[in-house]
């Protein structure tokens, strides 16, 4: 039901007053379902679609963003230098991969970029995206535009399509074309279609744009690989991502070090991990773990029965550096 402008104005004024009394921001107040100020209601097959928030799985990060990233909006991801492009793209694609998960994914993700950025930062590699974020090659589309005007045009046309699950637009630097008007057009279309548009800006500084949320993404060291004998020195495990909330109407600024788990496809909050999550290299808990480390063979006698006892006890001191875990060892403690 449409609410007329006067009533809307009154509601806004009241919200501001309540927020003042409660000592918080008006955006952080709970919004009743019937009144949705900034979003458009889209009905498909008579059922209203709810564009909620995309929760990353890292509790403190989500809480700082007031529940997560808006699903139907333009979101900016900034990288300070072009060499950070891998991390920035990885973070955005991980979020896009999270979007795919609940539906089972038929709608593809479109990655729009100029020829310049694909040459500078590398072309998206479907095998790696599948292994890291679970985005199958058939759910990916690329658009390579010769000029920035064309890239913006493609992104604008794509942002209004409900046949895509997300649009990723990657640009470099601070071009004049990408001003308040251009970003506002992208944002309005994303609102109308109910699909996110991720704007990746490599080697750019913050400018006024229409995007409600801006995140500054930087790389952080990866964890060590976890083996049965504890963390292995010198290995590269789950990638770390340092995220700073640069701008958000609802959030307080803050810095978080997230960690992407490619096996479970969730983020972990490394700075607050102790409170909510078990640290992956928590060897003290591991030794108490009653689960058999080596699986029983199915049927017949177990020839490794004698050896199992020995294998169950990890060595007390970590292995020397440079020693690699053998390949079959690694998937053994994937929790999936």
């Amino acid at each position, binding site marked *: 039901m449409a609410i007329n402008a006067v009533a809307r104005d009154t509601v806004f004024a009241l919200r501001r007053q309540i927020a003042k009394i409660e000592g918080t921001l008006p955006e952080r107040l709970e919004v009743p379902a019937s009144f949705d100020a900034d979003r458009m209601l889209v009905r498909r097959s008579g059922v209203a679609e709810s564009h909620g928030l995309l929760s990353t799985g890292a509790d403190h990060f989500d809480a700082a963003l007031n529940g997560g990233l808006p699903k139907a909006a333009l979101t900016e991801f900034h990288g300070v230098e072009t*060499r950070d492009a891998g991390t920035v793209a990885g973070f955005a*694609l991980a979020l896009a991969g999270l979007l795919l998960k609940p539906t089972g994914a038929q709608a593809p993700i479109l990655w729009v970029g100029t020829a310049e950025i694909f040459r500078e930062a590398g072309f998206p590699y479907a095998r790696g995206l599948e292994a890291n974020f679970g985005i199958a090659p058939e759910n990916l589309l690329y658009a390579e535009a010769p000029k920035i005007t064309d890239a913006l045009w493609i992104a604008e046309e794509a942002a209004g399509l409900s046949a895509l699950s997300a649009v990723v637009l990657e640009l470099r630097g601070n071009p004049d074309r990408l001003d308040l008007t251009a970003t506002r057009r992208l944002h309005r279309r994303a609102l109308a279609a109910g699909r996110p548009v991720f704007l990746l800006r490599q080697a750019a500084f913050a400018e006024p744009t229409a995007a409600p949320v801006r995140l500054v993404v930087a790389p952080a060291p990866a964890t060590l690989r976890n083996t049965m004998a504890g963390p292995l020195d010198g290995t590269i495990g789950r990638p770390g991502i340092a995220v700073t909330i640069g701008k958000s109407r609802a959030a307080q600024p803050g810095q978080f070090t997230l960690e992407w788990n490619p096996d479970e496809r969730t983020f972990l909050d490394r700075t607050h991990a102790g409170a909510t999550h078990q640290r992956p290299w928590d060897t003290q808990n591991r030794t108490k773990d009653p689960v058999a480390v080596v699986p029983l063979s199915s049927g017949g006698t177990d020839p490794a029965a004698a050896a199992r006892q020995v294998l169950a006890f990890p060595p007390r001191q970590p292995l020397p550096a440079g020693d690699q875990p053998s390949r079959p060892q690694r998937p053994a403690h994937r929790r999936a």
Partner: protein
Amino acid sequence: MISHRDRNAQRIAALDERAEALRLKPGMGIADARAMHPAIDVVEADPQADLRLLESLADWCDRYTPLVALDGADGLFLDITGCTHLFGGEHAMLDEILARFFHQGFDVRAGIASTAGAAWAAARFRGRCIIAIGQEEALLVPLPLAALRLEPAIRGSLESVGLRTVGAVLAAPRAPLARRFGIALLLRIDQALGRQDEAVSPRLPIAPLSVERHLAEPVTLIDDIERLVLLLATALKTDLERRGEGARAVALLLFRVDGVVTRLVVGTSRSMREPRLILKLFQEKLTAITEDFDAGYGFDLVRLAILATAPFDMHQADLADAAEDSEEDLALFADRIRARLGEGAILKPVAVESHLPERAVAVIPYWQDAPRRISPPKKPAGPRELPSAVPYQPERPIRLFQAPEPVEVPASEIPDGPPRQFRWRRALYRVAKVEGPERLAAEWWRKEEPTRDYFRIEDTEGRRYWLYRQGFFDASKPPPRWFMHGVFA
């Protein structure tokens, strides 16, 4: 005067009336001509430009018939069977063609006959005439042998025995002619007289469907052209419906008054017959060429041709207009981008069975099906629910450089070991953590490609890279080179 190079000498290839009046002749040496008349203006011949001009003329002649063929370097064949009534008969059509060419500044000779050979002879030796069926022989008899489109060698040997006109050859008995001068001579005679069919192969494939509109007043505005496209597309729709087909490729031909033909082609990902959608694609195309779009004095003929068709599957939409058209939306979106930005604008990755990283994914245009030589990776056999059936996935970067970038590695601990620091794009990176090597060799049938040892490397700031060393360390050879191939998340 135009010169060309023939047997190491500059000779006259063509000349105008004023040069002819100076008693210069084609084939004469340029040096001789200059000696006679020092003031002559000589231009080098450009056969490629001549051919381009002839092709553009052929495009323009498309307005009379879709069957236009090039004939050598200076002629065009127009198969006007069944087209003459559109222009008011053969005489009116011949007059119109000659008048239009004259106004464009060309000196053209034309002839109409029921065989290609007779028309060729009539155009070159009679000029502006129409040869009725059965009159070919009467036309050819007084003409010289050149009218028969013979090779110079055959013509020379015929003339050497005194057969100087077509009539003389026709009067001679056939069998000795064939024995002495070859079957080619009789073939040309039979073709000219209509005893044997001659196929004129058209320059462009014939469109299965096309509609056109001749305009009394030429149009110049893009808006008018768009309105015409919609009109023509609506006319095509009923034909497509009757055939049960939709268009896969549509061409728009704009004939400018001064003879320039603009040809715009759009392709579609799925068969389409809706006029509004066809118009949408052409709108993108017209927007894309808007900088070098020159309407000049206007277009007097607009033609919409369907170049390729495919079966059109109808499906009924439900009342709520559900989200089933989302795939159609996507196809239309891809077509519009293709129409504006070209074939390679929207791409999709296809997994290929190969262990070499750059060959493991093929990137092909959106509307193409994967070629058959690309075999998709095999799905692991056996029940999927067992965790052991999950295939081992090697660690792969999320971005890959299109060409691996060379990296300078000053020193590594052991010759075949990982680098401790490296220089990439003139910046120095210190290595904090290393995993590897992962050794990837080319397939056995590509022996010449060296083996690569891949290392996953994390620098001190936490960025993760994929470096490889090409080849092995060997004391007698220069040290192997290092390359940056991709970046991880």
